[in-house]
């Protein structure tokens, strides 16, 4: 299997840039266990630089793949396989007929040449499909390695026994300890462990899996790195996530999608029309005393029927799925990918998708008579003992805005640290500098006000105004107070807010231009939600959202005929994931969520929903563009073949030979060769997908019509002429 190996290599090569970029995002997703996250390292996954990445791109096409897929392409010549594509099946039948006729008349070089090129047309079509499938096969091979026969340690009434993984049934309890490979999909019911899921996600950093909650799902084929867990099996062997993944990437489970079926119907009817046009031509030709040979008629037919799109249609579908796989998204059905292109409402979780997911200090607001720098200094001091994300962010902001170097706990002598606790809701420090005692506190408004009053201080009037303003803007105010020689008093307010990721507004503007409405889902109160929605530029928001609210929203949108996409990971998201037209479950989520969604994002990056939509659109555009191209091509082929067929009977028709093709034979042969070569020439486009940028439907149509419609009219005139010029150089033809 040299083929398989080298393909694996190619595949991993093509994946590298994606992986690099996704590594960052995966870390973010992983960091849910340790929610501390500095703002810097999240910029990578923010869609702030849409021009460089984030745009739908495709795997690089390597011409070598064509050669390697050749055996597969030939295997696909089996009529039972070919019959699935009506257009190419007609070409295959045509090839068989011309072969028979060429054998009957072995001296006719023209018959042999046409026969050879017809067969090549069929092989090229199969090659396109084989190449598309080949990429998936490489991925499947990697997955199979993870699936090697595992031995499960089954627990039956507290007695452990060794059974093969394939014998596990739903509901069985198995034990896994450090070093064990998890034998099947299930939920952790006991214990906590770190698990290496790289076999599936490609991400080497381990994740934590624990019983209860939303992090209990484990996947068969992944490896326990530490501790011991008891797993309750939730899927039958052979239907596990990894099995489904293998089927999906291999294309074994591929079914034609609704739109593909519709397009196939249209192509079949066009094929019938052209079949009629060619079959009925013979009586007309006989009347005109220009009876045509069967070979010429078959050549005409093959040129006219939409072979280009017929040959590439399934490759486009497979490549679309593959583009998702390259982004570490598994679509459970092609239907879901197609639906993604049609989505008109995106439900986006605020946390992790729109915002960085935790409140961060954004501003220091001094009360009257105090400078912001003083507030910053006090705030920083009082936050050094605060290890919560909010506390860290205060230190970071003070450094960014006022250049205040972070001081470490050991640096300050005689410092007595007051760590943040949920009870006191304050943190701070009591220090003595040059014999002067100074107490600094930072915390929730109520607590700090109480502390100041307790120490005999007063609260300035403008504190109330400042905190109100912050609350109204959706932020959280923290007061900073100090007690020193001047007594206890409030210095100012820290404005904590949920920071919207960089570039989100631009992204949402783009989506709006594409006709997609974005709805932010958040558990925040309506005030906070409105402020963040405003800042991020989403079209709508759902505040204080419960799973029921989410479900109701989806149903409401769907009742209006809209297609809805959402992401989710919790068990309580499962009904909504199932209801949504595109439900992307996070791989870190529960098995219920993964079961309910029709896609799984292995990187657990909710922002990817936007990319999924783009891939769905690109898939449809590629189909439409190549269909247009294919039909537009026919015009030139007529101008090549009709004069070649009938100029003998009606010399006037030679005026239609506007390409001035050399001879009737060379004209027909050139058309057939062009028809075959254009398939190969378009394979990279079919696999990569046509270039896609978010823009209005009108603009996009104008652009694609110009390229694929007008281009499709003109290109074959040039192509056929060139081929004609080349083949006339061959002795015996020219």
């Amino acid at each position, binding site marked *: 299997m040299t083929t398989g190996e080298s393909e694996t290599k190619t595949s991993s090569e093509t994946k590298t840039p994606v992986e690099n970029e996704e590594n960052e995002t995966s870390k973010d997703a992983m960091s849910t266990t340790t929610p501390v996250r500095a703002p810097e390292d999240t910029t990578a996954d923010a869609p702030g630089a849409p021009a460089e990445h984030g745009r739908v791109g495709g795997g690089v096409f390597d011409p070598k793949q064509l050669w390697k897929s050749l055996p597969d392409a030939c295997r696909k010549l089996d009529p039972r396989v070919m019959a699935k594509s009506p257009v190419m099946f007609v070409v295959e039948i045509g090839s068989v007929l011309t072969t028979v006729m060429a054998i009957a008349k072995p001296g006719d070089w023209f018959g042999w040449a046409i026969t050879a090129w017809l067969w090549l047309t069929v092989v090229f079509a199969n090659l396109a499909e084989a190449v598309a499938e080949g990429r998936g096969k490489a991925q499947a091979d990697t997955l199979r390695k993870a699936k090697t026969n595992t031995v499960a340690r089954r627990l039956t009434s507290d007695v452990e026994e060794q059974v093969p993984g394939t014998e596990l049934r739903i509901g069985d309890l198995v034990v896994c300890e450090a070093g064990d490979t998890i034998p099947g999909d299930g939920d952790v019911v006991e214990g906590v462990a770190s698990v290496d899921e790289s076999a599936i996600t490609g991400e080497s950093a381990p994740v934590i899996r624990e019983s209860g909650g939303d992090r209990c799902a484990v996947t068969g084929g992944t490896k326990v790195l530490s501790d011991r867990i008891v797993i309750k099996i939730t899927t039958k062997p052979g239907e596990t996530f990894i099995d489904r993944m293998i089927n999906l990437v291999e294309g074994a489970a591929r079914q034609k999608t609704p*739109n593909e079926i*519709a397009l196939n*119907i249209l192509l079949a009817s066009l094929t019938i029309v052209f079949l*009629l046009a060619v079959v009925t031509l013979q009586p007309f030709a006989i009347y005109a005393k220009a009876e045509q040979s069967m070979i010429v008629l078959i050549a005409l037919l093959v040129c006219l029927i939409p072979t280009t799109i017929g040959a590439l249609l399934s490759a486009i579908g497979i490549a679309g799925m593959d583009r998702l796989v390259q982004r570490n998204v598994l679509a459970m059905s092609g239907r879901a990918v197609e639906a993604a292109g049609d989505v008109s409402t995106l439900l986006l979780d605020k946390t992790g998708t729109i915002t960085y997911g935790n409140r961060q200090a954004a501003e220091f607001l001094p009360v009257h008579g105090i400078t912001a720098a003083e507030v910053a200094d006090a705030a920083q001091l009082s936050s050094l003992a605060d290890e919560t994300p909010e506390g860290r962010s205060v230190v970071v902001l003070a450094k960014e805005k006022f250049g205040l170097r972070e001081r470490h706990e050991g640096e300050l002598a005689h410092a007595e640290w007051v760590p943040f606790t949920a009870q006191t809701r304050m943190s701070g420090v009591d220090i003595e500098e040059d014999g002067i005692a100074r107490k600094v506190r930072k915390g929730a408004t109520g607590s700090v006000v109480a502390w100041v009053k307790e120490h005999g201080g007063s609260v300035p009037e403008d504190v109330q105004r400042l905190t109100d303003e912050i609350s109204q803007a959706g932020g959280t105010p923290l007061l900073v107070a100090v007690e020193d020689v001047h007594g206890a008093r409030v210095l100012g307010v820290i404005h904590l807010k949920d920071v919207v990721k960089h570039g989100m507004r631009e992204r949402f503007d783009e989506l709006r231009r594409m*006709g997609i409405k974005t709805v932010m889902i958040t558990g925040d109160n309506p005030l906070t939600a409105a402020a963040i929605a405003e800042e991020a530029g989403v079209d709508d928001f759902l505040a204080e959202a419960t799973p029921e609210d989410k479900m109701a929203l989806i149903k409401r949108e769907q009742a209006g005929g*809209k297609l809805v996409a959402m992401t989710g990971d919790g068990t309580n998201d499962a009904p909504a994931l199932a209801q949504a037209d595109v439900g992307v479950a996070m791989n870190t989520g529960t098995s219920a969520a993964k079961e309910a969604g029709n896609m799984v994002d292995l990187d657990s990056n909710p922002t990817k929903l936007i990319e999924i939509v783009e891939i769905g659109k690109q898939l449809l555009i590629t189909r439409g563009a190549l269909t247009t191209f294919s039909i537009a091509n026919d*015009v030139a082929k*007529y101008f090549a073949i009709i004069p070649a067929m009938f100029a003998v009977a009606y010399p*006037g028709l030679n005026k239609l030979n506007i390409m001035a093709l050399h001879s009737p034979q060379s004209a027909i042969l050139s058309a057939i060769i062009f028809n075959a070569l254009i398939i190969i020439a378009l394979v990279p486009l079919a696999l990569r997908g046509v270039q896609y940028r978010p823009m209005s*439907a009108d603009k996009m149509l104008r652009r694609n019509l110009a390229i694929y419609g007008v281009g499709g009219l003109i290109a074959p005139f040039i192509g056929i002429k060139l081929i004609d010029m080349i083949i006339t150089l061959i002795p015996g033809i020219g």
Partner: protein
Amino acid sequence: MPIAAGAVGSMSPICADVLQVTALIVALALVYRPFGDYMAAVFASPKHLRVERWIYKAIGADPDAQMRWTAYLRGVLAFSAVSVLFLYLLQRVQNHLPGSLGFSAVSPAQAFNTAMSFVTNTNWQSYSGETTMGHVVQTGGLAVQNFVSAAVGIAVAIALVRGFARSRTGDLGNFWADLVRCVVRILLPGSFIAAIVLVACGAIQDFGTWHHLTTLAGDQQAMPVGGVASQEAIKEFGTNGGGYFNANSAHPFENPNAFTNFFEIFLILVIPFSLTRTFGTMVGSVKQGYAILAAMGIIWLIFVIFMSWSEFAHPGAALHAAGGAMEGKEQRFGVGSSSLFATSTTLTSTGAVNSFHSSFSAFGGGIALLGIMLGEIAPGGTGSGLYGMLIMAIIAVFIAGLMVGHTPEYLDKKIGSREIKFAASYILITPALVLIFTAIAMALPTPIHSAANPGPHGFSEVLYAYTSAANNNGSAFAGLNANTDWFNTTIGICMALGRFLPMVFVLALAGSLAEQQPVPATAGTLRTEKPLFAGLLVGTVLIVTALTFFPALALGPLAEGLS
């Protein structure tokens, strides 16, 4: 008179032609809105007129019952079957009927052909009206069909429009109500006014017996009579085309002068074009109607220009002296008016002629032929033009819709595999009928003997006959003797299949669309009311037709014209 002739003479024929086309467009534009909206109101109105109630009672129909597409189709087919039977019998017993003018019963094959022809709104005539049909058959049979066959077409189109306009229901309206209203409220009053105009301008309306005159030279001449003006009015208004006389609209009693010629062209085009307004109003966006109108209008104009050009520019000294290809054209109308009429009659399903298409230049004949091959959609027959163009719009939306990255939608309805199945079947039918029947006729030894000319022109005659029949046009290339058992029968079958099979798919499509829930348009949806889409639609229509018929056209008009 000499002054007037001099005045006309000072204007070049081409200039006169341009003015005439402009006047025609202005006239059509003036009635477009009021007439289109009136038709929309007719089909939307909940009220029944008293005379309509009588008709419903007489035929035992409940005009308020909503029909699913299958019931609607049953109504169409049952009504048409009864019509065919009735018309066939009427012709077969003609000699026993009063006012038969002494004509004998029509032969079975010709009676079958004529019955099919008038019920399918084709009005192909393998007979000469003035020497075959008496008053009862002409007025009680053929003229009645002129009304109801046109109304059936409009009813089917309205059902399709309702399919777009309605949601989450299978109901497409009531066939009987649509049929009766269309006749009573649109076709009858319209034809009445049109007939009066025609009579005023010199068309005859006379139910007596033939007049026998002695000419100045002393010869005996028989002058035919009949309810010509009334039939002429609905012949054009309902895009029927079956002439009272063999010479059709070239006959001075049917089409006396340049104004009636202009008026008849107006009548031919007014319903098909105005229906796009009806469509726009009914689907709640007149702009969508404008887009369809624009596509129809552009194709019509392109054809008018090419036709006129090819007739005016026809080479040759004699033709040059005559100012164009005058063979087979009436001196009263000249090249311009004849080209305009020929284009309008072949781009609708009318088939009335004021000149002989066979005598047009090879390209001119080819353009007439291609016009019919487009499938009667620019603007097409009454009703059939609209539904034909909407089907093409669905095909165009499907391909173009994909190119904007969306599952294709038209008028807020998804174009999925079911819709494409019906639309693709629709566009298959007429090409299949034309090509298969022509191929069989050409393969058999005898049919070609009917052709008056050898070579490509003879082939064009046969091709034209089946193209005309399958698309329910009814015009003849002339030169072909179609009154043989072979042509009477096959053309009869061709007309029936070409009319009713497409209707099956149109209604099935309408049913499927009506069941859908609408998908709201977003910025990502293809805008089908924009000029870009109208242009795309024109391109789709021309390319799909041209690709289908290019080989056949190459061996007919192209081979002749390029030689």
